[in-house]
C-alpha cells in the first residue's frame, strides 16, 4: 500500500469516533437538545466494548454492547431533559460524571490487574473496518434524513420552534427522545472504535475530550451533519499528520495545542467570520 493511501486510512480511522459523535450531536441539536453528555456516552461505549471483549465476546458483540451502553446513558439523559425537562447542560454533566465514575470504579474492581487486550475488528476494505465505513456513511445518512424526509423536517421543527411544532401537533418530546437515543447509539459505537481500533485496551477517561471536540465540530459545521463530518475528517487528518510530524521530530508544538484548534475554529464560525450562521432557535430550550 502506498504511504499516501495508508496515511489517508489512518486519518479516517482516527476520525471514526469523531464522525459518529458529531453526527449524533448534530441530530440532537437539530432537535433542540444540546447534549454535552456525548463525552460520557463515548466513554461508556469504550468501556462496554472492552468489558464484552474481555469476557470473550467477538468484536461484533462488543460493538453491540457499546451501542447498548451508549443508548442506556442517553436514555437517562433523555429522561432528565425531555421527560423531566431539566437543564440540558446540568443533565449532560450528570451523565459525564456517571460514566467517568462508573467505568473507572468497575475497571479498577475487575480488570486493573492483568489488563486484557480487546478483540480487534477485522478490516473490510484496506485497513478500514466496517465500523469506519459506518462512521463515514453516518453524516450523509443523517443529512439525508434531516433534509430530505418529512420526519427530518419535523425533527428540525422541534429545534427551531417548539411553539410552531406544537401548533402542527408534532410530538416534540418523542422526536427529541428519539434523536437523543440515536446519538447514544452512535456515540457508543464511537467508543467501540476507541477500544477496538485506536487502542487495544481500556484506559480510565480514554474518551479524552473527543465528545467535546465533536460538540465544537457540529457548531463549526453550522449544524449540518455533512459539514460537521467533513470537519471531523479534517481533524482526523491533522491528528494523523501531527503524529507523523512528532515522530519525525519536525514539530516542536505540544500536541495539546492541536486540541484547541476545533474550539477556536468553531468560535470563529460562531463569531460570524465565515458568513452568517446561527444555531437552531430553540436549542437548549425545554418544552413549556
Amino acid at each position, binding site marked *: 500500500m502506498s504511504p499516501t493511501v495508508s496515511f489517508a486510512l489512518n486519518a479516517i480511522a482516527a476520525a471514526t469516533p469523531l464522525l459518529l459523535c458529531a453526527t449524533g450531536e448534530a441530530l440532537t441539536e437539530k432537535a433542540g437538545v*444540546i447534549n*454535552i453528555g456525548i463525552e460520557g456516552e463515548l466513554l461508556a461505549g469504550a468501556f462496554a466494548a472492552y468489558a464484552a471483549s474481555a469476557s470473550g465476546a467477538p468484536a461484533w458483540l462488543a460493538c453491540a454492547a457499546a451501542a447498548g451502553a451508549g443508548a442506556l446513558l442517553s436514555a*437517562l439523559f433523555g429522561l*432528565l431533559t425531555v421527560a*423531566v*425537562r*431539566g*437543564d440540558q*447542560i*446540568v*443533565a449532560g*454533566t*450528570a*451523565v*459525564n*460524571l*456517571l460514566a*467517568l*465514575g*462508573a467505568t*473507572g*470504579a468497575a475497571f*479498577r*474492581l475487575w480488570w486493573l490487574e492483568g489488563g486484557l487486550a480487546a478483540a480487534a475488528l477485522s478490516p473490510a476494505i484496506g485497513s478500514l473496518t466496517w465500523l469506519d465505513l459506518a462512521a463515514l456513511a453516518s453524516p450523509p445518512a443523517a443529512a439525508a434524513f434531516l433534509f430530505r424526509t418529512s420526519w427530518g423536517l419535523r425533527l428540525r421543527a422541534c429545534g427551531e420552534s417548539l411553539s410552531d411544532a406544537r401548533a402542527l401537533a408534532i410530538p416534540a418530546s418523542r422526536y427529541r427522545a428519539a434523536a437523543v437515543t440515536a446519538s447514544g447509539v452512535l456515540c457508543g459505537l464511537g467508543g467501540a472504535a476507541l477500544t477496538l481500533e485506536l487502542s487495544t485496551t481500556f484506559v*480510565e477517561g480514554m474518551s479524552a*475530550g473527543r465528545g*467535546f*471536540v465533536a*460538540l*465544537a465540530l457540529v*457548531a463549526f459545521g453550522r449544524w449540518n451533519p455533512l459539514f460537521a463530518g467533513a470537519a471531523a475528517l479534517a481533524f482526523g487528518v491533522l491528528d494523523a499528520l501531527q503524529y507523523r510530524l512528532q515522530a519525525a521530530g519536525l514539530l516542536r*508544538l*505540544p500536541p*495539546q*495545542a492541536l*486540541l*484547541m484548534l476545533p*474550539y*477556536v475554529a*468553531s*468560535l470563529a464560525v*460562531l*463569531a460570524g467570520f465565515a458568513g452568517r450562521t446561527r*444555531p437552531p432557535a430553540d*436549542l*437548549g430550550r425545554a418544552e413549556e
Partner: protein
Amino acid sequence: MLATLLLNFVAVGLVATAVHSFLQERARTFPQTDAVPAGASLPMLLPGTRVHLGVAAAAALALAFRWFLRATNAGFRMRAVGANREAAALAGIRVARIRLAAFLASGAVAGLGGAVELTGVTGRLYESFSSGYGFLGLAAAVIGRLDPVGTAAACAAFGALQSAGMLLERRFGVSSVAVLVLEALLLAAALALPRWRRARA
C-alpha cells in the same frame, strides 16, 4: 451559551500547552509549573488542615452576592433581567449592560476560584488542574436554586462528598471515582425533584 462552552476548552488547551512548554517546571519532568514561592501561598485558617483563607472569602462572597441581589437597586435590576428580559427592557433597564456586568462578575469570581485553589491547595498549575469544577459549580447553582447561599451550601455538600470519597479509598479501598457516580445521582435527583413536586401538587 455555546461560545462560553467552547471557550472552556480553549482555556484548558492553553493551560495544557503552557505547562508542556514555556511554563513547565525547571526540572522538566512533569507537565506542571514550579510551585509558587512560600510567601505567595494563602494562609491557613485552621492550622494542620487545608482550610485556607479562600474558604472564608467564598463564604463572604456568597453572603455579599445574596445581599446585592436582594437589597440593592442594581441587584433588583439584575433579577428583573433574568426573570423577564422584555419586561425589564420596557421598564427602562439597560438589559445588555446588566447581562455583560453579570458575565464579567461571574468570570472574575471563577478566576478567583482558580487563584485560591492554586495558592491555597495545589501550589502549582498542571494539566487538568480544574477537574470539572466549573461544571460542578453550575450544577451546584441549579441545586441551590440560583440563590448564592444555597449554591454555597450545595458546593459544601459536593466538597464533603469528595473528601468522603478520598477517606473511603484510604480506609476501605473503595475507589474514589465511585463518588462521581454519587454526584451524578445527586444531580439527577435535583433535576427530577421539582418536576415530581409539581406532579404531586
